C-alpha cells in the first residue's frame, strides 16, 4: 500500500517533467561548462535526476533533500502534535450544550485558523516584533535574545513557527471539527454505557478507542502541513525542505524539486502506513480485515 502510493506519485511527477522542454541547465550562464563539468566529474548525462543544477550546482540531490528534510521534521512533527492537542482541547472545550462564551471562543478560534498560513505568519511576526519593541521602548523588559523575528535563529522562532504551521490554513479547525465528531460518536457508543454501568472510569476505554482515528487524522494532516511548511520556512527564514523546494522552483532546478516532492510523498505514505499498523495492532477487527 505504501509502495503503491509513492510509486504512483513518482510516476505522476516524472510524467509532468517529460513535458518540460530542454534542460534547465541551459538557463545557467555557464550552463554548458557546468554540464560538461558534471558529466566529467560524475559521469552523468542530461536528464539524470541525481544532481542539483542551479540551487547548489553539482551537489547530489539525495544528500540535499535528506539534510533539508531532517530540519523540516523538527518543525513538522511538533506542529502535528500541536494541531492534534489543540484540536482535541478545542473539541473538549465545546460539549454540545456549551455556554455562549465557549461557543464564541470556538468561533474565534475557527476564524483565526481559517486565515491562510501566509497572512497568519506575517501578522504574527509583525505583532510579536512591534509588541516586544513597544515594551522595550517603555523599558518594561530589556532586549530578549531571540528578538527581531525572523532574523535571529533560536528556539522561540521555532516555537512560533510551529504554532503558525499548526494553526494556519484551517488545519486546526478541521482537526477540532473531526475531533468533535469522534467525541460525539464515542459518547453515543454502546460499550461506553456498558463500562459506565459497571461503575468503572470510562477514560481508559475512551483513549483506547481514540487512538486509531487520531492516528488516521494525523496522517491526513501531513500533506497540508508540509505545504504550510514552504510558507512558514520562508516567512521565518528557516532553511528546511520548504526553502530548498522553493529555491529549486525559482531556479528551475527540477531534479531537486522532484527530490523534495518525492520526499513529501514518501513522508505522507509512511504516515499512512504508521496509522494502518497502529490500527492493526490495536483493533482486532482490523486484524482480520488485513489478514
Amino acid at each position, binding site marked *: 500500500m505504501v509502495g*503503491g*502510493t*509513492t510509486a*504512483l*506519485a513518482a510516476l*505522476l*511527477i516524472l510524467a*509532468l*517533467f517529460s*513535458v*518540460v522542454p530542454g534542460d534547465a541547465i541551459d538557463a545557467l550562464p555557464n550552463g554548458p561548462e557546468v554540464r560538461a563539468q558534471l558529466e566529467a566529474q560524475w559521469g552523468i548525462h542530461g536528464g539524470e535526476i541525481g544532481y542539483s543544477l542551479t540551487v547548489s550546482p553539482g551537489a547530489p540531490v539525495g544528500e540535499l533533500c535528506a539534510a533539508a528534510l531532517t530540519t523540516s521534521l523538527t518543525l513538522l512533527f511538533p506542529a502535528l502534535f500541536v494541531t492534534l492537542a489543540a484540536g482535541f482541547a478545542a473539541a473538549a472545550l465545546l460539549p454540545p450544550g456549551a455556554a455562549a462564551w465557549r461557543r464564541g471562543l470556538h468561533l474565534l478560534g*475557527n*476564524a483565526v485558523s*481559517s*486565515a*491562510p*498560513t*501566509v*497572512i497568519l505568519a*506575517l501578522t504574527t511576526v509583525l505583532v510579536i516584533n512591534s509588541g516586544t519593541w513597544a515594551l522595550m521602548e517603555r523599558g518594561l523588559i530589556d532586549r530578549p535574545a531571540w528578538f527581531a523575528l525572523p532574523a535571529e535563529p533560536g528556539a522561540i522562532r521555532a516555537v512560533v513557527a510551529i504554532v503558525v504551521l499548526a494553526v494556519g*490554513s*484551517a488545519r486546526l*479547525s*478541521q482537526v477540532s*471539527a473531526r475531533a*468533535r*465528531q469522534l467525541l460525539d460518536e464515542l459518547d453515543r457508543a454502546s460499550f461506553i454505557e456498558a463500562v459506565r454501568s459497571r461503575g468503572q472510569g470510562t477514560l481508559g476505554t475512551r483513549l483506547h478507542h481514540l487512538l486509531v482515528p487520531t492516528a488516521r487524522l494525523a496522517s491526513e494532516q501531513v*500533506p*497540508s502541513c*508540509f*505545504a504550510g511548511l*514552504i*510558507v512558514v520556512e*520562508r516567512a521565518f527564514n528557516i532553511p528546511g525542505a520548504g526553502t530548498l*523546494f*522553493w529555491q529549486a*522552483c*525559482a531556479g*528551475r532546478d*527540477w531534479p531537486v*524539486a*522532484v527530490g*523534495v*516532492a518525492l520526499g*513529501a*510523498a514518501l513522508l*505522507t*505514505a509512511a504516515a*499512512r502506513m504508521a496509522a494502518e499498523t497502529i490500527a492493526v495492532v490495536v483493533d482486532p477487527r482490523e486484524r482480520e480485515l488485513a489478514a
Partner: protein
Amino acid sequence: MTARLLLLAVVAIAAIVPYDALADVRPSLADEGPSVARWLGTDHLGRDVLRRLCAGGGAFFGPGLGAAALAAFGGTLAGAAAGWSGGAVAGVVRAAFRAIEAIPSLVLVLLCLMALGAGPVQLALAGGLAGMPALASALDARITSLKSAEFVLAARAHGIPPHRLLWWHLVWVNGRAIVAREALAVVGSVLVLEVTLSYLGHFGVAEPAASWGNMLSHAISTGCPNRWSWLAPAGAVLASVWATSPGPVRR
C-alpha cells in the same frame, strides 16, 4: 449559506468591472488616505486601492472557477466510476487519487507551474488537479453508501437502466450538493494558492495586473503608510476564505 454565495457573487460582479492597471498609476497621489474620490485611498504608486481590490478578485475567481469546473468534471467521473463499479476499477481510481493526495497541494501546484509556466490557465489546471481527489472521494463515499440502499435496489427491480440510475438518481439528485460544496472549496483553495504564490514571488500574478496577493506583497514591501493598502486585501482574502470554506463537516 446564502450569505456566502452573496459575497462570492459580489466578488464575481466586481471582477467584471473593467480596470486598466497601467492607466491607474498616478505617483503624484501616492500613499493617500481614504478620500471622497478614492474611498480606500491609494497605494505607493497612487493606484486606487478600491478599484484594484475589485479587479484583484478576478485574479483568483477566474482560475478558481476553472479549477472548480475541472475538479467537478474529473472528480464526478472518477468518483461515480469508483463508487458504482467497485472492485478493480475502484481500486485503481482510489489508488491514483490517494497518490495525488500524498503530494502536498502547494508542492503539486508549484511543480505544475514550474513545468507549464505561470499564468491563470496553468493555475486553474494545477488547482483543479489538486482539488480533484477530495471531490472524487467525497462523491465515491456517497455513492457506495447509497448503492445498497433499498430505493436503488427497488429502482433496479423496476428495470431502470443502470446508467440512468447512476447519473440521475445517485449523482445528480444525491450527489450534487457534495459536488457543489467541494467545488466551492476548490475556489477557496485557489484563492489561498494565489495569495501564497504572490508572497513567495515568481509564480504569482505579476504586477501591474491586480490581485489580492500582489496588493498585499506590494503594500508590505513598500511600507505604504495608507493602512488600507494592506488591510483591504487581507480583509477581502479572509472574507472570501470564510465564504468558500465548506463548513466543519467535510467528509
